[in-house]
């Protein structure tokens, strides 16, 4: 990719900044060739060129991050921090603002482990595989919680509110104690870490006075250079409860049953109720099933379900902990489902001492890192891509069914194959809708943008907001949070300007624009 400059910066100015960056990190870790720039593009994006960076700089330590940030202020160069850059479906390594310099933290891979308390203090470059390997190698009695694409960063995923499959799957809530380089280059620690040498930095979340940790999540207020992550003690037993829902309308009662289990604490993990395409898109390609345009018709859906032995929806619940407790809970859960369905309920059991060799589809429930779900981007053939639209709904079956109907109709209207799931939170549902596409099919690509915007408009009309979005749509989604004339966005930007007067850190992230670039808002 040829050089793209950020607004208001000349090539000579950028060049001077890069020379200064090299003085901090070494010439080898300033990456500014055409090929280097390409390696930070969003591989799965609808349009890669819209978010092209001008260069990247890869520090190794928090001190180097501080120096680079100070220099970026001096040269007025916008930085886009990434942990490992694997935020696929949300932008990968690419910046919102074209021409930003990627601050690549993937070389920062230190792990400190507090085995007594079950806390890993990780730097941004530590991937889920790295942490898993570390735990195995040191025979530590803890399990990781991993997302469907575990190639990425433990810290980066938690900072974007990514999720996993175990009871520790709400990753952002497992963060405890951060070290942050502020946009001026100053270093701070949150919570108890504000007390020098505190032994409870990574054990007690709030500290004294206001607690700022979520301020650094999905924001552009600082570069988190390390943070504590709580890990689940290796359970005595894991118990699986799986069932298939035959009819599309079964979603309603199933959501109500699980919502109650989440509310009263019977179920501590967040199960996802997924539609029939989930497995098929990973294991097969579309042309094996159907060779015509338009959404897959019902007879093809039936054929897919028959081959994989799945329902319209599939549910997997997991219990972790003491065997006797799990058994008791499972008994109650099973009875609650049996009030609504005669479908067989599959119970699986594992306990400490038994070999752990889960089938691929089960690995993530045991906290074993995986990447295979990403194969779904190859569903259409050609260069695959995907984006997700994920509004948050109230946790009730009526809301879920209405949202499903509306969304399914939109998929059919735009000729796209439905790929939806409903992840059950404690009081809410995250309705993840994946849009799979083929970048080599211009006709299909012509539909994707309008389709995505229709999904946002539909959900916004119902006053449902998205929990996380792709860099291309951050302004669109931020605009939907509109109470009192976008009061929240105004506050976000007052804070932004106070902390980052030169507007150098991740302009446009989550729709937050610093004064310098505010005219860039889409």
């Amino acid at each position: 990719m040829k050089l793209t400059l950020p607004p208001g910066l000349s090539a000579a100015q950028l060049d001077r900044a890069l020379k200064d960056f090299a003085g901090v990190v070494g010439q080898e870790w300033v990456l500014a060739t055409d090929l280097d720039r390409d390696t930070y593009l969003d591989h799965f994006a609808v349009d890669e060129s819209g978010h092209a960076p001008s260069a990247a700089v890869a520090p190794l330590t928090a001190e180097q991050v501080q120096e680079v940030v100070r220099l970026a202020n001096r040269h007025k160069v916008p930085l886009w921090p990434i942990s490992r850059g694997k935020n696929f479906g949300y932008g990968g390594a690419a910046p919102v603002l074209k021409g930003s310099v990627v601050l690549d933290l993937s070389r920062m891979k230190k792990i400190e482990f507090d085995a007594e308390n079950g806390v890993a203090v990780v730097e941004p470059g530590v991937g889920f595989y790295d942490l898993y390997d570390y735990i195995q190698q040191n025979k530590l009695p803890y399990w990781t919680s991993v997302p469907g694409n575990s190639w990425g960063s433990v810290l980066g995923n938690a900072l974007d509110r990514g999720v996993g499959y175990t009871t520790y799957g709400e990753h952002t809530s497992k963060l405890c104690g951060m070290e942050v380089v502020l946009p001026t280059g100053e270093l701070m620690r949150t919570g108890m870490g504000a007390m020098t040498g505190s032994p409870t930095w990574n054990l007690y979340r709030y500290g004294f006075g206001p607690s700022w940790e979520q301020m650094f999540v999905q924001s552009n207020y600082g570069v988190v250079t390390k943070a504590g992550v709580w890990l689940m003690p290796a359970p005595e037993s894991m118990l699986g409860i799986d069932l298939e829902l035959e009819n599309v309308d079964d979603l309603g009662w199933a959501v109500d049953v699980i919502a109650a289990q989440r509310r009263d604490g019977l179920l501590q993990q967040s199960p996802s109720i997924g539609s029939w395409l989930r497995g098929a898109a990973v294991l097969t390609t579309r042309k094996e099933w159907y060779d015509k345009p338009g959404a897959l018709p019902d007879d093809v859906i039936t054929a897919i379900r028959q081959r994989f032995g799945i329902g319209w929806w599939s549910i997997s619940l997991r219990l972790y902990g003491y065997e006797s407790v799990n058994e008791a809970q499972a008994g109650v859960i099973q009875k609650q489902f049996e009030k609504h369905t005669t479908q067989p309920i599959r119970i699986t059991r594992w306990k400490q001492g038994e070999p752990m060799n889960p089938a691929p589809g089960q690995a993530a429930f045991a906290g074993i890192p995986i990447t295979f779900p990403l194969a779904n981007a190859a569903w259409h053939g050609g260069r695959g891509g995907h984006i997700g639209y994920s509004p948050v709904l109230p946790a009730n079956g009526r809301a879920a069914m209405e949202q499903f109907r509306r969304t399914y109709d939109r998929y059919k209207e735009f000729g796209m194959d439905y790929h939806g799931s409903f992840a059950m939170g404690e009081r809410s549902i995250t309705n993840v809708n994946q849009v799979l596409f083929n970048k080599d099919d211009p006709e299909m690509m012509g539909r994707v943008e309008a389709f995505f915007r229709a999904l946002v408009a539909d959900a916004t009309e119902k006053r449902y907001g998205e929990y996380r979005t792709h860099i291309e749509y951050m302004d669109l989604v931020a605009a939907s949070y509109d109470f009192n004339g976008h009061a929240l966005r105004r506050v976000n930007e007052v804070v932004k300007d106070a902390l980052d007067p030169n507007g150098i850190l991740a302009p446009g992230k989550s729709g937050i624009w610093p004064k310098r670039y505010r005219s860039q808002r889409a």
Partner: protein
Amino acid sequence: MTRGNILRKLSVLAALLSGLAAAGQGQAAEALDGKALFQARCGMCHQTIGMAVGILSRRPNDPSKGFLEERTDLSATLVRTVVRTGIANMPRMPRPEVSDPELAAIAGYLSKGKP
């Protein structure tokens, strides 16, 4: 555990150490362990149940079943190019994640000496 064999752990550690050494001292490519680096940098998608194994194994008439290490038709140039430019479902990998000397070692390992 599936990924829990000791051999793998040791080689991951070795790869990390050798990677750091290479990064720090500009060590020559031939001193790096291509196999260990392949495991550490590429194994998540190209070994066991990885994303790429699944996709590549769908190809007809390929006896490797999607495992790059079993293939005999890879050239070093192809490996180096694909890692930096991406291909199909595979995203590009920047140099801080796989340095040029590391990539050369991985390419040498997978190509079994073919340039």
